[in-house]
């Protein structure tokens, strides 16, 4: 079988070797083309690493303020209800500075897709501690390891999945089975939006070798073996589905 790159992802990405962002971008491009929404998709990307996609994919794209991707996307969706609209951000944007925006879009069940790239650190700024950093994880701002007595570890997905939304799932951008699964989750999120079901959040665990200070293979192992203990994979809400 010959694999064909999606036409909507057209530039060679300059993400770090072993980073998950390029994979996520490609999966979104593939899904958009398979669903036939590539010409009506509007994407909203966060600043920093996420924002590189604005130059890599052929979608109308807004680069939003840090952590405000979701309200920005909601604004677009209200004005362009026939467009497919997605917000794409890291865990810092979605669960730290933008936690309120994430929770309240879910409360309103706004009809958009949210994709959260969770790599357990702030990437672009150099690997600082995030709400998603694991207990004991050494980061640029927790050099002795994240102290669980002072800083808890949580993904905002745990709150969103308790709400009356369309779809909540978590996958990992690791290995061929992880990639196939992640693509399925992305497709289901868009399908829910096209059906008018409301808010979808898909969190994708993603390796950040540069800031984990690990070679790519070990960074993948960290995601697959360690992060999944705290952030279990699966589908948690699937309106009208079988969850």
């Amino acid at each position: 079988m010959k694999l064909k790159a999606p036409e909507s992802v057209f530039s060679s990405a300059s993400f770090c070797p072993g980073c998950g962002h390029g994979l996520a971008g490609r999966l979104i491009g593939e899904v958009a083309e398979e669903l036939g929404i590539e010409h009506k998709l509007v994407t909203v990307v966060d600043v920093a690493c996420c924002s590189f996609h604005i130059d890599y994919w052929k979608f109308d794209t807004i680069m939003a303020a840090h952590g405000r991707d979701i309200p920005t996307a909601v604004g677009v969706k209200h004005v362009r209800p026939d467009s497919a609209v997605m917000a794409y951000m890291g865990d810092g944007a979605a669960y730290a500075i933008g936690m309120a925006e994430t929770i309240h879009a879910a409360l309103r069940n706004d009809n958009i897709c949210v994709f959260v790239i969770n790599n357990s650190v702030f990437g672009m700024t150099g690997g600082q501690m995030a709400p998603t950093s694991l207990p004991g994880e050494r980061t640029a701002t927790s050099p002795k390891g994240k102290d669980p007595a002072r800083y808890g570890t949580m993904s905002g997905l745990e709150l969103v999945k308790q709400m009356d939304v369309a779809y909540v799932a978590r996958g990992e951008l690791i290995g061929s089975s992880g990639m196939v699964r992640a693509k399925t989750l992305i497709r289901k999120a868009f399908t829910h939006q096209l059906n008018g079901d409301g808010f979808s959040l898909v969190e994708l665990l993603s390796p950040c070798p540069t800031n984990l200070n690990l070679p790519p293979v070990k960074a993948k192992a960290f995601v697959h073996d360690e992060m999944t203990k705290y952030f279990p994979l699966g589908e948690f809400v699937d309106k009208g589905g079988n969850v």
Partner: protein
Amino acid sequence: MAKELMKGNEALAEAAIRAGCRFYSGYPITPQTEILEYLSWRMDEVGGTFVQTESELAGVNMLLGAAAAGARALSSSAGPGFSLKQEGISYLVAADLPAVIIDVMRIGTGLGDIAQGQGDYWQLTRGGGHGDYHTIVIAPASVQENCDLMQTAFTLAEKYRHPVLVASDAAIGQMVEGVELPPMHEHDVDTYDWAVRGCAAGAEPRKVQNTYYTRPDYVEYLRDKYAQMEEQEQRWEAYRAEDADVVLVAYGISSRISKEAVDLARERGFRLGLIRPITLWPFPTKAFAACENAKAFLTVEINILGQMADDVRLAVQHRCPVDFYGVFFDLPEPEDIIAKAEALLGKEGK
């Protein structure tokens, strides 16, 4: 057309609808909350969108999304809430996006209080957010002007692809006056090609981001844009100013009391005049050329520090004294204004 009675804040909201605004996002804060309350039902009637957001931050960024998608979009706030809007205003400027944001000014720093104030002048005219920028700032002085200037605000926002701020205050926001409403205008979200909607096959994708990333002429472009605004968009009203010995400078509710002071002083033979800036930025420096007889200028403001006085000093190039009469929490008193103006003239006359 028959006049009807409207509250200032509701007039702003209705005028926005009639200017073709079909998107509003905001958060309750006194003294601007009537704008939200009015639009919560009125947007439904015209098929627009009203969203009460979880914060002003979410509100202004939702506004940015709606503006980027091509809608005529509005948000509003006051005091502490308007400070939270600054993040989004800076981003709107950076991305060349038109939108209108209303500040119904209240009094004081921090929480302050809910009475009328004019203490946001610096924040409004200097670029309240990070980076170096200006926004056009329009200051209505009556409920009728609330109606008329909303159309202007949206027109200028689109002319320059730039956010426009409307500086009202608690007094004008809460007062009820007779108004003649403008006719209904519909705005097509496809009017401008830059609005995101989905990238057609073979087309270049639209990118809404800081124009610094995309414009090789970024610096010149911005300097030209602001220079053009300063040249073309100064708006003011001169009232008995030409032969005045002392010219008051006041906007919004203060300008109405100042007019009363002018008339009162003239009855007593004291030639007082008024320049009322309608745009706070660009500041109407051109208005001052006509005040050939003026020996002093006095700003009348509801704040402690006399925030507008420096702009007047620049406008008159320090050719004569400029002072301010400021009140806090209260409204300016015509007698006090006249007394201060006379003292200023006396000082100058000797």
